[in-house]
């Protein structure tokens, strides 16, 4: 039975790995372009969604975790959101990515520019306090949720094999 399941789901797994590679490529291209980092946040979040599907250990973090986040960037007029919930179809917790701001969030993070937004998802150690003090980042909501989210998102550069963006001192 287990073997049968493996055979059925092998193409799904392969497709996910391929998708992850594609997202990695997309991120590298955005980073190589330099300057405007529009889109990096969305791609990184999609990567995190995929990693959570693939990695059972990491997925344990979102078991019974119903949370909603919005990320807004002022200079690019960008908004992207994520929500965590249990998928009836997959019978497991999942993360969804939305290309817009959503209501009833646990926390909304507003970035001054796309660079700060990119650092948030792609740096070795995202520093929200430094961001607040430098007037580059504002939080509205339960701070604890962003701490948990940073824990999750720090897996993205590592898992994608991409050098983290270094934050300016």
């Amino acid at each position, binding site marked *: 039975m287990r073997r049968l399941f493996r055979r059925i789901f092998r193409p799904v797994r392969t497709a996910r790995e391929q998708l992850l590679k594609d997202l990695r490529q997309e991120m590298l291209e955005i980073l190589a372009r330099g300057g405007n980092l529009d889109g990096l946040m969305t791609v990184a979040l999609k990567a995190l969604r995929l990693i959570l599907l693939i990695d059972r250990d990491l997925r344990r973090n979102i078991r019974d975790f119903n949370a909603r986040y919005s990320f807004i960037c002022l200079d690019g007029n960008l908004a992207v959101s994520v929500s965590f919930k249990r998928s009836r179809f997959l019978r497991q917790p999942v993360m969804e990515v939305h290309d817009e701001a959503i209501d009833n969030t646990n926390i909304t993070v507003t970035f001054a520019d796309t660079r700060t937004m990119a650092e948030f998802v792609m740096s070795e150690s995202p520093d929200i306090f430094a961001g607040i003090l430098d007037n580059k980042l504002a939080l509205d909501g339960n*701070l604890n*949720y962003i701490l*948990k989210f940073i824990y999750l998102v720090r897996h993205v550069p590592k898992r994608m094999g991409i050098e983290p963006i270094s934050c300016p001192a």
Partner: protein
Amino acid sequence: MGFSIQDIRPQLAKFTRDNMSETLPLLAELLTRHHKARTAVDVERARYITAYMKKPDSRDEPIQIKRAKAVKNYLSNRKVHFHDDNRLGGATTAHELGAPVYPEFFGLGIWPELEFISERKANPQFLSTQDAKTLNYDVFPWWLERTISEQVRKKDSESQALVEKMILMTISKAATISHTTPDYGRVVKQGINKIIANSREQEAACGSDTTKINFYKSIRISMQGILDYSANIAVQAQKRADEISDSAPQHINRRSNLLEIARICSKVPAEPAASYHEAVTALWICQVAVMAENSNMAINPGRIDQILYPFFRNDIESGRLTVAEALEITGCLWLKLADNVNLVPEAAERLFGGAGAVPAITLGGIDADGRDAVNELTYLMLKVTELLPIRDPNVNARYLSGTNPVEYRDEVSRVILSTKAIPAFFNDEQNIRALEEQAETLEHARDYAVVGCVELGSAGRDYSASSSIFMMLHTVLYMALHNGRTPVTGDKSLGPETGEPADLPDIEAFWSAFEAQYAWLADKAVHLNNLYGKAHQENLPTPLLSSLFHGPMESGRDLIFGGAVYNSSGVTHIGFADVCDSINAIEDVCFSNNRMMHMPLADLVAAVDADFEGYDDLWHYVRNRAPKYGTEHKVAIRNSQRMIRNNFECFDGKRNYRGGNYRVAYWTMTNHAGYGRVAGALPNGRKAKVVFSSGITPASQVDTSLTSALNDVARLDSRHIPGAYALNMKYSSLEGESAATKRFSDVIESYFRSGGQQVQFNIQDYHTLIDAKATPDEYEDLLVRVSGYSAYFNSLNSAMQDELITRSQYDLMGNGKFVKLDPPLKSFKSLSKAGGAK
């Protein structure tokens, strides 16, 4: 029979750091271990507390009982560890040097770095994979909606948002219930069984008042936790001793030490102590227990030379204790008090890292009747401080001129010169007067202990919460110069609209704006502090700590509800000297008949906002020619005194959530470096992202003299600074011990007679510290005074190291003349705009 107590001091002279490995080999070994120990995150407390909170005995349990049971769950079940051959049983955490996690406060701050904290560059704190999983899956998720900050945000998100802007103020209650001095004397003298019996009697007498009944029950539950913990230490010590069959001398010593721990812990703290060793053990176990309930920040043993003296004297005079043994037991206490540090998230580490847990010990001074309280144990503890120059405990020496002997003042001075940093000096005359002005009785004020860094509180009577509020004076100044706007609110005024710079025609108008902005911020800070206090009342009562205070037992009221005799909260300030000097510059350049440099306030503000780019002449003028606090310039004296008075009067009359008052103070820990690193330029010529001056200390590198600097500080009215201040002075290295000691001691006398409250020292010259920064491996254990506490230089972030390097240095033996840092500041890359912490 032993020997006379008067024979102690000649005996102490025989013990030095050089001969410690022969005379006190155990302490020498423990000191080496202490320096080698690396910090580990301790999850045991978080695990037990969370486990009980998740599944309490009853869902309907009152929070008073629930909290007591959660703490008991930890104390009764935690593992007993013997990390070394220390003669005291018990440890703060499961690690040799542990950082306990308090998830109810800000423990979740390390969530982002659970997989990295062991390897981070700045002060890594080891966390095993298993413990990281425990926090990630079992502990932190439960607290997501339940931390104290979140409880407050749910009630008043607008006010909480002010704190999260981080530049206005800090409300420490988000991170801690702490900064107070319990009455360990009652445990040492009476034992916990007596406290339990008292709680039964009080409960029987309180009728049907369920609040009081629950309070007394909660005391018994938490006290039982301490008894269980002590009994477990005894059992484990006995077991370990039984396992040692080797007859090698070191194993025989270890076995007898364990057997003695087993004997003592099966007796105290349950019963009254009958010996010095028992008394020290009882005190230590209670200190551990207090930190099981409350955060490990500035929980202070207090005046232990007074508490422990009767036991010491009896043992010495009866021959049960030798001086060497007393030094060893006391040294063991010092090293135990240093067995924990705060859990520090990476982001906070970059800004504020390097602090210990700052348990303050207070020596000397006078007793409640006004008599000289310096005793032979005071001298013995000073010797231990000299032999063990370690970060914690924070040792402080009280001194009252004319009552305490000059020999004592000289001995404290000698120890400071020997350690180059500790202890700090406190002036009883000013501090007792300041506390009396805060409605403490004379007897209670005389029995004050230093809290954490420098704060004051009647020992065991004042639940002082002395680090409640940090006011950012540089932000107040910015708001006064920008019509109520702040650096993080853009064009929108956050504070009152007190006028644009062009609307402020004279210095009085400017002061009015400054005072209005300060008053607005003070109101917000008090509102928030009280909100946090109420959140503590609803979620985190403190039955264990309450049982170790005067007041709660009699009134049936927990400390957190105002059960103590005194119920103060502390308000400290960041950026005092820089803001004073900025006001001096504003007055001098914009509102005086200055012919050398004159401009409208709006132009000065524009220059400051441009970080003086393109304003070189102005910058040189305000840096070098404008009046400066610490130089005895009449304008600077007037403005510094006005600021002190204004800040005091603004908080005077405000009440905290426990019905107590707010005590204004000026100490900064490392915050002056951390916030300086992210703050903009100031009118005194301090450029953007440069550290502020510490505590009450005049700004660094101001051309002055030791006498002028001390005089200006001493002129500040201590009645307006009831929370005390940290004055950080740096002397060139001193040669010739006795002459230097005498000069050093005489300067203290003179400064205190002039009205100084406190002073602490680094006896390090610029170049030693520059070298220490460049070659940290050669200065591994270099101890320095920061702003109220001690730290290892290498553990401080780059900004704080630079602040210590650039602090003004005075040549004590050269008439106290100021020694200029050469080459000057600009040669330090990390002090330039691009600089930053490690």
